[in-house]
Each structure stands twice: as C-alpha cells, then as structure tokens.
C-alpha cells in the first residue's frame, strides 16, 4: 500500500480544483466584459498574468505553508493566535510590497520598450500595491479556514488549500485590478 493514491489525488484535488476553475471562469467573464478596455490599454494585459500570478503565488505560499504547519503539528486547526502564522504573515506581506515595486518597474519598462500607450508609473504602482496588499490579507483568512476545515475532515490540506486560496485570490485579483484601474483613472 502506498501513502499516496492516484484515485484520492483525483478525488480530493478534483473537488477543490473544479470549484476553483468554476470560480475562475467568473473571473474570465469579468475580463471578457471589459475586453475592449483591456485590448485598448495593453499595459493591463501585460500586467494581467503577473498580477494573477502574484496573487496566486501569495495564495500558494500561504496555502502550502499552512498545510505543512498542520502536517508538522506546529499549528492546530483552530482560530487562535499562533506565533508561526504571525511571523509568516509578516514575511508574506513584506514579499508582497517588495514584489509590487519590482513588478511595476518591469511592466512600465516593457510597455515603454514595446511602444505601448504610456500610463503614469505612479498610477500603475498604486494599482499593483492595492491588489497585492489586499490579497495577502484575504489569502491568510481563506487559507486558514480552508486548511483547517479540510484537515479536520481528514483530507490532506495539500490537495485543497492551494486551489481554494488561489481561486479566491484570482477572482478578487481580477476585481481589484479592474476597480483599482478605474479608481486611479486608467480605464
């Protein structure tokens, strides 16, 4: 008997990822509704995979680590102050802010090099920062709930936490991107 079974991976992962794929199709619907704005302001298309990535990455770092903490017994599956989680949250937030600065620089530079219509760099930074900071907070809340609930249920949180957290982060990311962009007046 093996510890991992293909059938369980398909079953447990299937439930979680199917949910996340359905949620993400709604993110796609949001983008599709704004397709003309996205096609006419290409810096948003340039930013889109990176921003979706960054939000997903933050979700992954959080989800994967919460699963490992649970497996190692460092975190109990209940809502309480935990030094491991607190320190990890501070670290993730720091990574989010630093990455936002770098990402803005890259997107502005790439758009400039490609000769795409220019958007004020500070506005781009505001959009990226607003997305990443809000997403970090959301990722932690959702990651804890998803990890704790599935772990208590006897499922491997490695199979479930990441898809759930990243799907929530993606739809929130698409919403935050579009609303932050219209708040600072890009679209």
């Amino acid at each position, binding site marked *: 008997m093996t510890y991992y079974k293909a059938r369980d991976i*398909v079953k447990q992962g299937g439930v979680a990822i199917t949910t996340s794929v359905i949620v993400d199709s709604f993110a*796609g*619907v949001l983008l599709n509704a704004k*397709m003309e704005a996205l096609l006419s302001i290409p810096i948003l298309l340039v930013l889109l995979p990176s921003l979706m990535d960054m939000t997903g990455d933050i979700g992954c770092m959080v*989800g994967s680590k919460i699963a490992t903490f649970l497996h190692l017994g460092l975190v109990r599956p209940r809502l309480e102050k935990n030094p491991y989680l607190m320190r990890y949250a501070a670290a993730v937030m720091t990574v989010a802010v630093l990455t936002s600065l770098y990402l803005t620089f890259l997107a502005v530079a790439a758009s400039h090099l*490609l000769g795409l219509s220019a958007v004020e760099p500070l506005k781009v930074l505001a959009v990226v920062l607003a997305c990443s900071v809000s997403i970090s907070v959301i990722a932690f809340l959702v990651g804890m709930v998803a990890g704790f609930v599935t772990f208590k249920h006897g499922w491997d949180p490695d199979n479930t936490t990441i898809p759930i957290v990243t799907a929530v982060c993606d739809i929130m990311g698409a919403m935050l991107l579009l609303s932050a962009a219209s708040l600072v007046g890009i679209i």
Partner: protein
Amino acid sequence: MFKQTVREGFLSQVIIQTFGIAAGVGLASMRGALEELPGMLIMVPAFLQMRGAIGGTLASRLSSALHTGVIEPRLKPSRELSQNLVGTFVLNVILSGLIGCLAHFMCLLFGFKSSGLLALFLLALIAGIISNLVIMLITTVMTIKIYQRGLDPDVIMGPFVTTLGDVVSIPCLFLAALILMAAGM
C-alpha cells in the same frame, strides 16, 4: 524563518515576475487570437488557475512527502511518485475538458459570443495535455533538486510552478488556437 521566507520568497518572485511579464507580453500579442476565437479570454484565468493548481498541489504534496520522508530526495521511479503523477495526469485531462465546456456555458449565460462547444472543448483539451506533460516533468525534477540543496520547496516551488504554468500555458493555448484555426473551426 522571517528572513529566510522574505529572502527566498522575494528572490523567487523576482525571477517569476520577469517570466510573468513575458507571459503578459505574450498575452498582449495574442490579441488577434482572442478576438478570432470568442470565449477564449474567459478560459484564460481558469486555465492558468488549473495549471497552477495542478502543478502547485503536485509540488506541495511532493514537498510534504520529502519533509516527512515518504518520498526519498532522489530522482528515481517509486510507487509513491508514480501514484502522484498518474493522479495529476488524469485530473488534468478531466479538468481541461471541463474548462472548455465552462467557457462555452459562460458565454451562453452572460450573452457573449462563443466559438462553439466543440472548438472551446478541443482548445482547452489540446492546450491542457501539452502543457501538463511539460509542467509535471519540470515540477518533479525541480522540487527534488531544491530539497536536495537544503532549500524549502514550499516557499519556492508553489510560486514558481504557478508562473511556470502561465509561461507554458499561454504558448500552448496559442498553439492549440492555431491548430483549431488551421482546421477551420
């Protein structure tokens, strides 16, 4: 742990976002195909999400398996590893097909133009199978290599796999779109 997480997390983000912007430039230059195959933009976030989730859960399971000693940190076939890979592949085929159908269904539901159920189904399935083979290979090798070097694959691989998924997925979607357009769909 704070310093290590920030250092490894930010370093991997620097590498990842460089690729992410490359994927973005790819997406921006795919504008033609996005207009040509209505419904395709709807499947982009779901497809990238699936790619990241399947790669991410594989990396996350392998990380836990390495941390707990269920899988040895060596590149050799084992039953635990093959169960992981078979599960990953089956899951991928099922979900790719589902994403194509969902994109068509969302078009109907929200009144957008669709390329049709069959076209979107095949688009997602072809792109899904090609990209999955690439991702499984890279994820398995890198997770084990990173662990061997004493780094924490939980911090590096999860983020890396999602971006790698994007960089691999967007050309695969583009390739599948070209195949379908050549077939006259």
